[in-house]
């Protein structure tokens, strides 16, 4: 009797789900280990939009959840089982998923790692240069502070690969400015609420600060200064829509946005499709160099003005496409629909 009940439960589960799509064009697998973060959501939407715009992809197989490297090993192996032609992966870290990537490439599947690098040599890498990201922003900040003063260093998630790379870049800039000190170093975990609470605590404590460097949790930091009526100091953030809007609109705010395009995911899909069609890239690794948009220079002001886009979620990077790589339109990425959706 008991197994009958369970049989019904299993049948209900199975009938509720569709059947696998018939394959004609390419099937692309996607693996991502952070869910619910604006940057990563834009990355996944860019992947979907590029797959749709290319016209070459029949279906996307997306493994998108919060997990660790061991979980990503499982996801990649499941994608191998699903028989995909290529896998575009944002790796949990550089070494932990090498075993599954090797199994995929051995099975003839093209693997492209986006955003962060992997050490498995059979994978192609299309990554934002995270060390440079931190360096250019920190250098601008220390320069704007006049080469002296105390800075709040608001990092990403402790132990994350990108956070460590950025730390190297930040420390490199710090070494060039001996009169700059770090007043407070905190991990925001790339969480808006956590970052805001931390800066409110720092402001309330009354420690003198002359600048804030953030690892992309930026618009809430400006909000905290404005809400607590603290005197604004130079702030560095990422090119998230909310922060770029503030750079143009908040009176007295001197700040800079460093580009870190989430659309690198779309570029990864484009690269995978090129390889599937026999066009090999010149190098196994392609690095996307970050740009700095500062609102204290005319050039930066123009870039900030051009980057304004009220249709975007405030957590989304405004650099929604990468010239030379992505082919989708602004509407396509905002719609966030892949082939067959």
């Amino acid at each position: 009797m008991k197994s009958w009940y369970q049989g019904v439960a299993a049948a209900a589960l199975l009938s509720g789900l569709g059947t696998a799509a018939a394959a004609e064009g390419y099937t692309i697998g996607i693996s991502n280990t952070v869910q619910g973060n604006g940057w990563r959501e834009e990355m996944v939407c860019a992947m979907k939009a590029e797959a749709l715009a290319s016209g070459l992809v029949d279906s996307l197989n997306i493994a998108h959840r919060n997990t660790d490297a061991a979980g990503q090993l499982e996801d990649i192996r499941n994608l191998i089982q699903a028989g995909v032609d290529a896998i575009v992966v944002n790796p949990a870290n550089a070494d932990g998923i090498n075993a599954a990537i090797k199994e995929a490439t051995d099975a003839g599947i093209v693997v492209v790692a986006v955003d962060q690098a992997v050490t498995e040599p059979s994978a192609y890498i299309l990554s934002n240069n995270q060390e440079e990201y931190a360096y250019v922003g920190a250098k601008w900040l220390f320069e704007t502070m006049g080469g002296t003063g105390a800075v709040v260093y608001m990092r990403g998630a402790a132990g994350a690969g990108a956070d460590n790379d950025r730390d190297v870049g930040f420390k490199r800039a710090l070494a060039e400015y001996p009169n700059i000190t770090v007043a407070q170093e905190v991990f925001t975990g790339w969480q808006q609420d956590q970052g805001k609470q931390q800066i409110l605590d720092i402001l309330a404590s009354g420690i003198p600060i002359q600048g804030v460097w953030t690892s992309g949790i930026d618009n809430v930091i400006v909000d905290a200064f404005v809400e607590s009526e603290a005197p604004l100091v130079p702030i560095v953030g990422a090119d998230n829509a909310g922060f770029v809007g503030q750079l143009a609109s908040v009176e007295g705010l001197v700040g800079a946005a460093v580009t870190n395009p989430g659309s690198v995911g779309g570029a990864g899909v484009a690269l995978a499709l090129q390889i599937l069609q026999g066009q090999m890239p010149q190098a196994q690794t392609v690095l996307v160099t970050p740009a700095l948009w500062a609102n204290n220079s005319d050039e930066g002001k123009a870039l900030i003005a051009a980057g304004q886009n009220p249709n975007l979620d405030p957590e989304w990077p405004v650099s929604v496409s990468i010239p030379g790589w992505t082919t989708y339109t602004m509407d396509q990425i905002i719609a966030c629909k892949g082939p067959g959706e």
Partner: protein
Amino acid sequence: MMRLVQRNGWVAGLLVLLIILLIATKIIQPDFGASGVESLGRASVPFAFATAAMAIVVIAGGIDLSIAAMMAVCSVTAARLMVGAGDGETVLIVILVLALGALMGAINGAMVVLTRVPDIVVTLAMLFVWEGTALLILNTPSGAATQWLRDLILGSLSIPGLPERATFIPKSLVFVVICLIPFWFIMHRTKLGLSIYAVGGDPVAAFRSGVPIGRTRIIAYSLAGVLAGLGGLSLTMSTGIGEPIPGPYLLASVSAVVLGGVALSGGKGGIIGPIVAVFILRLVRMDLTLMSVDPNVTTIVEGTIMVVVVMLGGMLAMKGRRP
């Protein structure tokens, strides 16, 4: 035979569900075979140890929210020590890591027993302590794993005279079974196991029967710690590195324990049911990926299965109680 099925009705039901799911997987993906089973086996290893750990603590009437964090501590310790370690040294490192797991578990248990603060509060606090400890040991994913240790869960068991592909038994599954046998034996064939069930089922009755409540609970937490150590080791074995940030093993282990027929109120259930539940949950995840179901729907489906199965179980239990 019938008696065996009746006594282990819940486990038998889960096994039927597992077989149905395996058949469904074969229908969804006709190529599903030895390599698919092998992938499933390897993915299940850390979940299996986390779940067995949670099952023992829950049977003892507690709950350990720090299991995933203890796994992270053990994983980074192993990965850090195994950099450049020889084959012999690796054996010592494994023993050390398991001892570390036991120690952390004992600390958790002792704090629960001595402070009389509820388990859920103590282990929630310890979750943060162990998380920080893992980051102190290794602040970024790195380290190494000795090759022979990694090979223990790699590939399928080869039977002499048969090609490797012809055998469907993944080494990872054998590894889990061998590691769990001692724990199954303790829980079901020793006085200590009986005490753990007694303490979880009715502490007052256990106390009046002369069972040392505090000591039994600390031992239960230590056993869970050793299992968390095995879980941490298996993470290092599968990734080849140590990751200081805990993975999603806490909630997954609670899910598998509940689905596996262990009562959260303590004193009821076993280890085998939750382990079968681990395979079911991993297979569901695989099927959802194979069918390219929207990832945001995936978690809803996983949660729904849990609720439906546990509700059916509850209904059956009530039915069974009627005269």
